[in-house]
């Protein structure tokens, strides 16, 4: 009951408010048509105002203006207070202040947008992660032993690739094999970065096949070694010694496995180069003719197969 009264109250108030206007107008003996003509307003609007209905009027902005003009015409004092009263009864109206764009021409994505923020963070973290990973794989990070396991396999596979033919023939397979299990990781070779599982499996198989082959032909290998009588030991990690004598002027550049320049200079007639470094050594000799003798780990080495237009480029130990 109480609620009903409260709900009805604004309507009652509005009617009372309008009725007061009607009584003032009638006391001045002005007809509603006359008033409407005076104000240049449709009669319907004045009827709505007097009946206290807002629905028949365009919007609160206009209603306020009409009421103001009407009150002024009727000569009622305190126009502002009366209008405020009317607004208090009816509220500001829904259309007031709800200005929308006709079409959302360009929906602006602000930098503060959480999605945008998240994306940026993910991107930055990804870049950071990739660069750390690259740095670790490239330079071994803080600790060489922390290199991923896949790289060990890769190293092993490269070692075995070389070993398949050469090592068996040269009888060094027995020496090469232990490196598969307990050799420290060679950083120089590890820049072939990503090793997917398939490749890992493949090398695993290769390793087995190689092991079988070695097991099957141990004698021949040993025999080969004995026959060859070579003192060459191709331990992948053992330092390599190179010495060369020159009979003419020649440019020599030797880099070790870490990419460090061991030697990079011009050698003249009668001069020699003696270098020991981490494998693989990358060697550039400007003039093949100028080399008198070339020794690799003490043994004479023929440069002719590596010479191209009198320039020798080779990596030691030689991989097939």
């Amino acid at each position, binding site marked *: 009951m109480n609620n009903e009264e409260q709900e009805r109250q604004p309507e009652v108030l509005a009617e009372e408010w309008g009725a007061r206007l009607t009584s003032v107008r009638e006391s001045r003996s002005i007809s509603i048509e006359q008033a409407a003509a005076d104000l240049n307003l449709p009669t319907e609007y004045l009827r709505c105002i007097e009946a206290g209905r807002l629905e028949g009027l365009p919007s609160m*902005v206009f209603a306020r203006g009409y009421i103001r003009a009407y009150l002024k015409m009727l000569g009622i004092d305190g126009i502002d207070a009366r209008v405020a009263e009317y607004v208090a009864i009816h509220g500001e109206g829904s259309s007031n202040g709800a*200005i929308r*764009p006709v079409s959302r021409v360009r929906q602006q994505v602000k930098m503060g947008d959480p999605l945008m923020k998240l994306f940026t963070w993910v991107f930055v973290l990804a870049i950071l992660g990739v660069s750390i990973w690259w740095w670790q794989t490239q330079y071994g990070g803080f600790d060489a032993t922390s290199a991923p396991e896949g790289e060990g396999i890769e190293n092993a596979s490269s070692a075995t690739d070389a070993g398949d033919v050469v090592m068996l023939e040269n009888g060094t397979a027995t020496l090469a094999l232990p490196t598969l299990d307990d050799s420290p990781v060679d950083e120089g070779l590890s820049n072939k970065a990503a090793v997917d599982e398939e490749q890992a499996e493949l090398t695993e198989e290769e390793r087995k096949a190689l092991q079988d082959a070695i097991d099957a032909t141990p004698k021949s290998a040993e025999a080969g070694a004995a026959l060859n009588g070579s003192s060459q030991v191709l331990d992948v990690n053992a330092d390599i010694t190179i010495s060369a004598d020159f009979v003419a002027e020649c440019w020599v550049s030797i880099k070790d496995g870490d990419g460090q320049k061991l030697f990079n200079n011009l050698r003249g007639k009668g001069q020699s180069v003696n270098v020991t470094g981490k494998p693989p050594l990358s060697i550039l000799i400007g003039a093949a003719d100028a080399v008198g003798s070339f020794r690799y780990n003490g043994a004479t080495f023929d440069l002719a197969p590596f010479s191209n237009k009198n320039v020798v480029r080779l990596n030691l130990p030689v991989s097939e």
Partner: protein
Amino acid sequence: MLKKIRGLFSSDLSIDLGTANTLIYVRDKDIVLDEPSVVAIRQTGNQKSVAAVGADAKRMLGRTPGSITAIRPMKDGVIADFHVTEKMLQYFISKVHDTNFLTPSPRVLVCVPCKSTQVERRAIKESAMGAGAREVYLIDEPMAAAIGAGLPVDEASGSMVVDIGGGTTEIAVISLNGIVYADSVRLGGDRFDEYIVTYVRRNYGSLIGDSTAERIKQEIGTAYPSSEMHEIDVRGRNLAEGIPRSFTLNSNEILEALQEPLSAIVQAVKSALEQCPPELASDIAERGIVLTGGGALLRNIDRLISEETGLPVIVAEDPLTCVARGGGRALEMLDKHGFELVSHD
């Protein structure tokens, strides 16, 4: 870069850079500044410095010694003195920001007369930039006035707004957030004052200042004859005798004095209605014309336009601040939706 950092400490502003008054609306607050667009410049030797800005400077208008000149840097709605306007804006912008820690660098929306030229717009933009704004948007004055008055500008129905400012009168028909027809008459409150000064000189042989003329207009000025008669005592310098004399003016005399500018405004309104597409004209005829701006406060001006056009005419609530408030609303819309009403040039 520095502007961006300073921007973090600044609030977005909507500025109604009017000929007579400058109003600043701060986003999410309200109108925080309403001061006359007057700057007093003090000259010492070759050096010029700002002596006062706003209300203080206005009090000096016509009362300055040789070393001080009180300037109104805006004329006919556009910038007349670029540097002084810049100084004035700089002063106002820093005044609405409480912090003195950093020079504020707000985003600013400035209202410009709809018929202003590219050069005039550029001048306003540059001077706002010079005053420290980090971004400047421009909006047509009648559009801002319509938004500020609360008209349903986004609806597919015509609304007519007449904004009688200090320097210009802007008339526009608006529908669907766009201006269908707009006209700008370089006639406003200032011109009313001039006509009053001329009238007094001609009929009373006395010279009065602009400030006095403005006071006369505000107190007894009327645009349509009514039964009420108001009178005011004025003191002016008698031209024949050269001595200040006192005389009395009544509202009918002011009505007579203002006939010419008022009829020009009415004529502009009529021609706007003539140019208006019929559908929109019928919307306007049904709901009426809305008056905003300081000129709307002239007594019975709604009655005059209503009588002349035969249409209902209403005066917006708080007509002086409509433009600044409308600009503020547009600024809020700008962030939410990229409002199409606002332009960069």
